[in-house]
């Protein structure tokens, strides 16, 4: 009985193995056919939709799918029952299936059944009846698909460049997002910032990250970076107190307070109070004139401390004491002064941290432009005009962000060589080479400051006389029509500077800032 059971199992396993082999072949080739189908779709699709490296991806996909198919099929061993049923389908009429179920059954009928089943199975040529089939049809389909893919590779792909560009943009965005993460982490680790400051900075940076993920091209990422720079700058300005500079300046004017000024410059909060106490003692040694001078300085300083009325009051009281010569115990005044100045210095820390952030963002943007199209240029424009006796020289030079000198040629019929000097205005920001048409606005050449001198040299011929005019601030064109995007940054900067120096409520300042920021969108 034992032998019959084993024989039944042996035959069933033999059939099962052959089934498994067939299954592995079929499953793997099927996976290959499906993979090649997807590959072909990808190849065709890449003609209409920009898909980066479509062919390489197709190869990887086909490889992965086929290998997966093979590996999966290796572990999908058919069951003995399925093998028995397959064997029975060769005219055994469920003899094997029944025998398999009766394995171990020692009843007379079970033994008879098993012997009968074995007898019939032995009559079968298993290799002939249960062949390992190679999936010819699927293989043929796979071959045709592979051929189509190869043929499609020779057809020019109009989307290839676009796909490469998009991929580059994607990589760039990812890089920038990492940079932003890096900046966020730095902000978080900065112990000098308060929780509120960190939160505000992080919000702006997270917003940038979000915008970057939505960006479709590099221009959008640049805009997002610029917007965030502005936001961070506004944050910086929010916490920046120019009164500290005023105090340093005022302290630097007097010998007695010069060391205090140095201390403030170094932002050494720890030593500030000691230095103040030391200065208080030194004040007692000053003569009346020196005290008066110091008192006047401090009084003027108090007037300039518009943003810090408490500090102004402290300086004012100190100046009053000095002018009256009542320099008794000044510990309280100095202590109050020390606290107020320390507070200012803390804000200054934030300002510095934010400047770092801005710097990093600028670096990121610069890398973006540098790595980008290879077309990012600093472009400056200098215009100068020289006037000879009757001739006019005019020149333009490009290249330097600071503006440049132009060379002019004399146009005079009497061949006078003109020579002149001109001023040039350099745009601060480099052009990204965008060809978009922006509305043009009139731009005064000397917006908010003085232009720089530049020499305009003309060639000298042998005839006529030569005269030279030295012109300050340039002559001739005082402005020109320029696309607004080229001058917006400069206008914004001037506007921000302007509202800083004016006593305008913070809310109104924000409205102006928001307006300029929105123009950049």
């Amino acid at each position, binding site marked *: 009985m034992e032998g019959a059971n084993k024989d039944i199992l042996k035959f069933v396993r033999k059939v099962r193995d052959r089934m498994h082999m067939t299954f592995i072949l079929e499953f793997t080739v099927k996976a290959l056919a499906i993979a090649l189908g997807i590959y072909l779709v990808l190849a065709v699709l890449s003609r209409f939709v920009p898909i980066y490296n479509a062919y390489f991806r197709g190869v990887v996909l086909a490889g992965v799918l086929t290998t997966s198919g093979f590996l999966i099929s290796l572990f999908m061993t058919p069951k003995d029952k399925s093998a028995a049923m397959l064997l029975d389908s060769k005219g055994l009429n*469920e003899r094997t299936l029944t025998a398999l179920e009766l394995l171990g059954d020692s009843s007379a009928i079970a033994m008879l*059944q098993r012997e009968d089943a074995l007898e019939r199975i032995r009559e079968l040529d298993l290799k002939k009846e249960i062949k390992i089939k190679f999936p010819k049809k699927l293989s043929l389909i796979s071959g045709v698909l592979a051929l189509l893919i190869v043929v499609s590779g020779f057809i020019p792909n109009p989307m290839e460049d676009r796909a490469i560009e998009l991929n580059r943009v994607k990589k760039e965005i990812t890089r920038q997002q990492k940079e932003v993460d890096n900046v966020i982490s730095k902000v978080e680790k900065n112990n000098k910032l308060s929780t509120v400051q960190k939160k505000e900075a992080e919000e702006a940076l997270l917003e940038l990250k979000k915008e970057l993920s939505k960006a479709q091209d590099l221009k959008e990422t640049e805009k997002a970076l610029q917007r965030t720079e502005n936001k961070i700058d506004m944050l910086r300005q929010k916490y920046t107190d120019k009164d500290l500079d005023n105090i340093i300046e005022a302290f630097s004017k007097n010998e007695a307070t010069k060391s205090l000024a140095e201390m403030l410059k170094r932002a050494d909060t720890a030593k500030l109070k000691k230095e103040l106490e030391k200065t208080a003692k030194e004040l007692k040694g000053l003569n009346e004139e020196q005290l008066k001078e110091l008192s006047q300085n401090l009084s003027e300083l108090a007037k300039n401390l518009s943003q810090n009325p408490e500090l102004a009051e402290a300086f004012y009281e100190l100046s009053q004491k000095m002018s009256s010569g009542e320099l008794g115990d000044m510990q309280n005044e100095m202590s109050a002064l020390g606290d107020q100045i320390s507070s200012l210095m803390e804000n200054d820390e934030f300002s510095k941290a934010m400047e770092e952030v801005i710097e990093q963002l600028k670096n990121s943007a610069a890398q973006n432009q540098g790595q980008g199209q290879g077309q990012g240029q600093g472009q400056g424009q200098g215009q100068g005009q020289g006037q000879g006796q009757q001739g006019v020289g005019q020149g333009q030079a490009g290249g330097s962000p600071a503006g440049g000198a132009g060379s002019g040629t004399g146009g005079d019929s009497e061949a006078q060589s003109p020579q002149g000097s001109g001023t040039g205005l350099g745009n601060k920001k480099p052009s990204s080479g965008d060809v978009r048409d922006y509305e043009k606005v009139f731009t005064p050449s000397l917006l908010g400051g003085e232009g720089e001198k530049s020499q305009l040299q003309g060639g000298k011929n042998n005839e006529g006389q030569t005269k030279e005019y030295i012109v300050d601030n340039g002559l001739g064109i005082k402005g020109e029509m320029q696309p607004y995007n080229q001058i917006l940054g400069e206008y914004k900067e001037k506007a921000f500077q302007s509202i800083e120096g004016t006593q305008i409520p913070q809310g109104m300042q924000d409205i102006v800032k928001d307006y300029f920021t929105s123009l950049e969108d």
Partner: protein
Amino acid sequence: MNIQEKDVRDAYDIVKSMEEEIGKAIIGQKEVIRQVIIGLLSGGHILLEGAPGLGKTQLVKTLAGVMDLSFSRIQFTPDLMPADVIGTNILVKDEEGHSTFEFHKGPVFSHLVLADEINRATPKTQSALLEAMQEATVTAFKTTYELPGPFMVMATQNPIEMEGTYPLPEAQLDRFLFKIDVKFPSLAELKGIVDLTTSNAETEINKIADGNKILDMRRMIREIPIAQPVLSYALKAVMYTHPENADAPDIAKKYIRFGASPRAAQAIINSAKVRALLEGRYNVSFEDIRYVAYPALRHRVFMNYEGIAEGMSTDMIIEEILHRAEEQM
């Protein structure tokens, strides 16, 4: 039961001999003969349906002749009474002159009972067979009498002369193991029938087996194993005759009014085992199930008016049901 290979071979030989003997008297109708033998060895009753003159009655008479069994024939007519079938008490006088009732056994007290044209009797009379067919007993006047074993009812009915007939109720039909359609013979078979019945040649029928042998064979056949997938196939086939079954084929859902009872599953399995033996196997195959499913389900699947109006046959529905059961394997 300890079965020896010899027993199985003997049984196989007996069945083959029976087929041969019956074949002497019945020309053609091989499948009908085989199904009748399957019914006999399964311990079921058989309803033969066919036009007049196709040899239904002759087949039953021959079968009785082949086996050493008692045989009685009841011609069912509208005026036939239950007592005419099962028997009745009659008043008899004993030796001392006292009158007493004595049960006079009816024709049902035989091994083989031919209920000829069963649908011509009233339902009341038809129902007299219910207990006999199910329990192999007869109860009359508060006394239950056992019928001799093996007991088998073979009924015939004519499907074309429906006037004045009483279709068998569902409960009665369910008691029949098989309903066998007796088809018109082929030309060659018809010639053989004519040759046999229009000459003076006499056919000698040999008795092959007695009642005890039949009972032994029945017991042995029940031992034949059936694999789970095969059993499952049979049970699914029965389940799918029920239109309310979600997996039933559309044709079943559309045209069946009532599906088969659990007796159908018993009938299929028992008869499939016999069929396996007839095929010289010790196990039941899918083919056995397919073979016996038609006669076992044919009278247990009740079509609705739509099915009847559209000319559907139960065999067509059974075919679809078997397909569905195969799909669900």
